[in-house]
């Protein structure tokens, strides 16, 4: 089991937002998406998994250990929706700086950077981060995410600001990793076309609660697309899944 969350609760007193995840799991090699409108609790849940936010109660097991143990993150990479790199670093320098904290496990940092640059069509490795466009910065962030050879990648709105060609290059790389190393992915997005036909499992979240989950086979059986599945649940009032 890659990730298992049970009865996780978190209340923000200021906004009175309440997150309650009764049951959530990701198995080895699974591509899981959490879908929901803005402010539904997707990023909050991810931050709790990574111990950036503290849950009020509940149990989370990450790679067979308690998620609060920082060693569990040895094989987990996270791309937050909002991130901030060192502006005065070049892309290469920034990647080397983060590789100081967690280097690639299977190859050298330089080799991995070259591999990612080639896969993501990046020709701005020696450009300072402050001079990058939005799409370039997002691609850089994805390079940062895939720098270490991990088992679980958590991607929060990973395709913000990317064009179709770049999105395809990144998805191709993800599928290559999945084939080579059977990686697991947890992705959140509100752009449904990004994950159409790619996810093995989908969870729908609304107002801090998981309202439905389905496998790819179930969606293909009942709906024509992920979008239809999504609209079907959010346009109707659905009960919370147990």
């Amino acid at each position, binding site marked *: 089991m890659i990730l298992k969350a049970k009865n996780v609760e978190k209340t923000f007193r200021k906004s009175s937002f309440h997150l309650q995840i009764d049951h959530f799991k990701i198995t080895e090699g699974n591509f899981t998406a959490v879908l929901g409108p803005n402010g539904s609790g997707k990023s909050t849940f991810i*931050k709790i998994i*990574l*111990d*950036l*936010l*503290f849950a009020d109660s509940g149990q989370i097991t990450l790679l067979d250990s308690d998620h609060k143990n*920082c*060693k*569990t*993150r*040895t094989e*987990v*990479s*996270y791309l*937050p929706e*909002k*991130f*901030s*790199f*060192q502006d*005065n*670093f070049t892309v290469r*320098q920034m990647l*080397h*700086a*983060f590789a*100081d*904290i*967690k280097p690639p496990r299977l190859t050298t940092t330089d080799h991995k950077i070259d591999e990612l640059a080639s896969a993501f069509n990046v020709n701005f490795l020696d450009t300072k981060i402050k001079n990058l466009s939005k799409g370039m910065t997002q691609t850089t962030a994805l390079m*940062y995410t895939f720098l270490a050879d991990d088992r679980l990648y*958590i991607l929060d709105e990973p395709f913000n600001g990317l064009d179709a060609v770049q999105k395809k290059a990144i998805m191709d790389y993800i599928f290559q990793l999945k084939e080579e190393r059977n990686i697991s992915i947890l992705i959140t997005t509100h752009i449904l076309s990004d994950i159409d036909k790619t996810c093995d499992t989908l969870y729908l979240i609304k107002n801090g609660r998981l309202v439905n989950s389905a496998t790819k086979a179930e969606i293909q059986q009942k709906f024509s697309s992920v979008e239809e599945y999504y609209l079907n649940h959010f346009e109707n009032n659905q009960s919370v899944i147990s």
Partner: protein
Amino acid sequence: MIRYNLRTLLKNKVLWAWPIVYFLFTLVIFAWGDITSAQNSYSFILVLGGVHISSSMFISQFVSITTLITVVGLPSHFFKNLKSERAALLLSKPISRSDFFLADFASVMILAFFYTFICIMLLAILMAVKAAIFPFQLFLGFLLFLPLLLLTYYITIVLILILTNSFLGAVFFGYFLTGFSSLFLDIKQIFRFFGIKSKLAHVAITLLSYLIPSAEGAERILNQIFSGGFTAIDGSLFVFVLVSCLPFGLLSYYLFLKKEF
């Protein structure tokens, strides 16, 4: 994490001003000035354009400039690391909040020693060439106690950064609060000046003196070394400076462990 911090700190252009100021000073004295040594090796006089500057004045000016540069430059990386956009990148790696916090202080101290060492080398070359002196204890005092002085300011600034997330507020308030600690070293005089006789006030202010990192204490130790070498250090003052760093340091550590990003 220490290497990551050091990469960031070494790219900090504000901090570059520290060795650059010393370098420019060395160049100026080489070109236009002179140094004459007094009878003992701790004292010297700088001569520049007919102006005579005593070693104590020179040292106090340089300590002040260094403090000013570092108070502005040193905390900027910690401030950025505290933002949730950066903290999420760092704390999602296999490092604990404890590692994150302690590595930051370790990195800052390594950098402070490194830049102090560069400055000492420049001064050593200057004094050897111009006055044929090598005041070893002065240099060693600089190397050991200038970073300690900077640490007293940094601890206060870090605490305020964690509490407020405001860089400017932390720098200004930290600078003045740590500077304010100088009052506590002359408590008896202050009591006499204000005519305070209450025992409770005595106890309260004495306790307060141990709460705020004592920059003035570290500065006085530096002056003691410059005037009489290491044997002149007041041991109780040294312990007081170290102890005064603990409350704010430990409180920052505790608050950081509880901080959500």
